[in-house]
């Protein structure tokens, strides 16, 4: 496969995954707004999300102080920030357009239609329709993933699509956790409130029923974190994402990718054989930060080994 084609497939799936998870993060705030919380805590919650996404300074430059409506508009609709939800949908489509001959026409038409229909959503949307918008984004992502799994040949194209999806999902799951841990409302002292706030995160990630089945116990920050990091069988979980990443990278291995494979294997092993308590011994957010750094390293190495090879030719 052409390296450039692999590059577009990888970014197509990363942007799509990012759009879906961004919808979930915003959705969590919509749900939190229904809980009896201090106005102060609501604003701090949005701020925590902006920080964990690395989009806080861009927000401040644009809007100044945090308000729920501006934060929603920025994360969902901002046409000038490449990290906004609409821009992610657009980037997914632009990458798909560059490889429309490699993906199936069903995939292309779905991504294209998502992009065309997204033009009707903007900052003038009334409050009441905003939840439907987030649902729509999740639905389009589900649809696209379904069509991909139902029609795309299981060759390199499929591997690079998966590599993008799982690298992005591992990253996004840790950011959703990080945002909750950074939210001063969620310090674990006020158990009752915490329980409902962490339940909101689970619901936003479509993982609440799974939690009940696995734990049959009250919702606590540490249990939720452990589940989202360590469960090998949870599709949204970091452990699962690393297993998929490792398998797909092994399937496309080439002459220069040995070190990348070693590093992803090493990272995977932490989750496979490590103890949750030891991984987070220096604090959950410290661990999450360090982990995101290692994902960035992997992303850079994947680009060098497969996507934009230079020098060696």
């Amino acid at each position, binding site marked *: *496969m*052409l*390296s*450039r*084609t*692999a590059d577009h497939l990888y970014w197509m799936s990363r942007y799509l995954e990012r759009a879906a998870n961004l919808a979930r993060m915003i959705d969590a705030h919509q749900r939190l707004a229904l809980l009896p919380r201090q106005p102060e805590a609501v604003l701090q919650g949005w701020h925590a999300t902006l920080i964990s996404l690395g989009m806080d300074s861009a927000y401040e430059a644009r809007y100044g102080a945090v308000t729920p409506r501006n934060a929603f508009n920025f994360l969902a609709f901002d*046409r000038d920030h490449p990290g906004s939800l609409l821009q992610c949908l*657009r980037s997914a489509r*632009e990458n798909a*357009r*560059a*490889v*429309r*001959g*490699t993906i199936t*026409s069903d995939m*292309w*038409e779905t991504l*294209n*239609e998502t992009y*065309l229909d997204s*033009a009707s959503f903007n900052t003038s949307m009334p409050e009441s329709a905003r939840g439907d918008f987030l649902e729509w984004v999740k639905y389009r992502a589900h649809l696209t993933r379904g069509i991909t799994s139902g029609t795309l040949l299981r060759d*390199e194209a499929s591997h*690079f699509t998966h590599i993008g999806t799982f690298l992005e999902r591992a990253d996004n799951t840790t950011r959703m956790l990080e945002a909750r841990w950074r939210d001063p409302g969620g310090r674990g002292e006020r158990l009752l409130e915490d329980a409902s706030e962490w339940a909101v995160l689970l619901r936003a990630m479509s993982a609440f029923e799974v939690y009940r089945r696995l734990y049959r116990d009250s919702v606590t920050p540490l249990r939720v974190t452990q589940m989202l990091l360590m469960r090998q069988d949870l599709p949204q979980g970091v452990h699962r994402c690393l297993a998929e990443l490792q398998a797909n990278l092994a399937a*496309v291995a*080439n*002459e220069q990718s040995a070190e990348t494979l070693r590093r992803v294997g090493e990272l995977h092993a932490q989750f496979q054989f490590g103890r949750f308590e030891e991984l987070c011994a220096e604090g959950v957010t410290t661990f999450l930060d360090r982990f995101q750094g290692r994902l960035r390293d992997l992303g850079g190495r994947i680009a060098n080994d*497969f*996507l934009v*090879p230079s020098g060696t*030719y």
Partner: protein
Amino acid sequence: MPVPYDEMLDPAGAPRAHCRPYYGWLREQPAEQLARKRTEADALFHRLGITFAVYGENEGTERLIPFDIVPRILPAHEWQRLEAGLKQRVRALNAFLADVYHEQRILKARLVPPEQILCNPQYRPEMQGVRLPGGIYSHIAGVDVVRDHDGNFCVLEDNLRVPSGVSYMLENRRMMMRLFPELFARNAVEPVEHYPDVLHENLKSVAPAGATDPTVVLLTPGAYNSAYFEHAFLAQQMGIELVEGQDLFVRDAALYMRTTRGPERVDVVYRRIDDDFLDPLTFRADSTLGVPGLLTAYRAGHVSIANAIGTGIADDKSIYPYVPDMVRFYLDEEPLLNNVPTWVLRREKEREHVLAHLPDLVVKEVHGAGGYGMLIGPAASRAQIEEFRGRIHAHPERYIAQPTLALSTSPTLVAQGLAPRHIDLRPFVLSGREVTVVPGGLTRVALTEGSLVVNSSQGGGTKDTWVLGPDWSQARDETL
């Protein structure tokens, strides 16, 4: 100007014999139904992404080439004559190119003045003496054909470099089948969908000797080119890689593409970028679209390029008047397809005639393309005509002139309902082991009333082109 020939209706307004079944059906369709089908077609084209991206000021706008739901219909016997003429013409043009870049017999015979060739910017001295597989230069030719007021076909222009539009021929047919399946059961329309297969076979057949299972790629300028949809579409239909210049590199006079598993050899390049941009080491040094060293690999015979470099010398407007002579010279046959009558302004007598009749004529710059650099006498102001007169006096060799043609018309669905609009036809002639024309081509239509400019860059639209099967024509002859 004479009354134009209408392709569907005779001068009395009755449908021509081969159009009767379609026209009968068309008359039964309520206006709202047709309008709804047209809206449906637009929505489908958008969803399929068969659009021009317009980047810049108005973020995210994408344009469609307007599609008309009324087809242009050709009966079998007319098509057979046209097809034979097209094949003959392209054979002669390829023979001319091979001759120009080798023996130059036609120059020695004084049929074409040598300076017309050797001093022409389209002549590529780099190609002199280079041997090409099969001796083919223009593997894909798009020959623009119009019909005069008597309904005779004549050639307006040969496009031998990187002709485009074939994806619209294919997508228009798919769209018609989706919108009006019942019509295809009633009319025996010759299929066109095998075009990509024929093209792929032809491209493989011209691979360098020794490439047993040749790798063919399609070279595109990239996703922001206005014809990108067509490039992606053809690559997908042929099952070949769609590459950009940055994906390719030359090592030891051989061409490779960069893949996730390392370099992979490329044998044939179906290029959709102009000669000037192909190799910055030989042509335009500032080109980032091409591949440094490609010409070296090409000249060494290690890679084939379709169309060949240097084909522009045969479709240049200054060479066009000589094509009928080429047919006689190389094939020893009489041309089956005529040129549009053309005055060559380099010749004094013809120039005098043209200068005396400028308001009635069309004057074309020999190196212009896409409807630019052109004077349409009847539509021009006095000042424009005088401006051209001055330009012709200064550089007569840069111009040719033709009568203003009454291009044929076809009923077309416009805002006011069905109305005649001028059309042309671009059939695609493929040369490999043999010369093939898929029945039909791209019909372009000038949507503005009275306009003769069909180019999509200037607001033209397209129609599906039907060639009816011979069986149907026979049945028709029996019933008549």
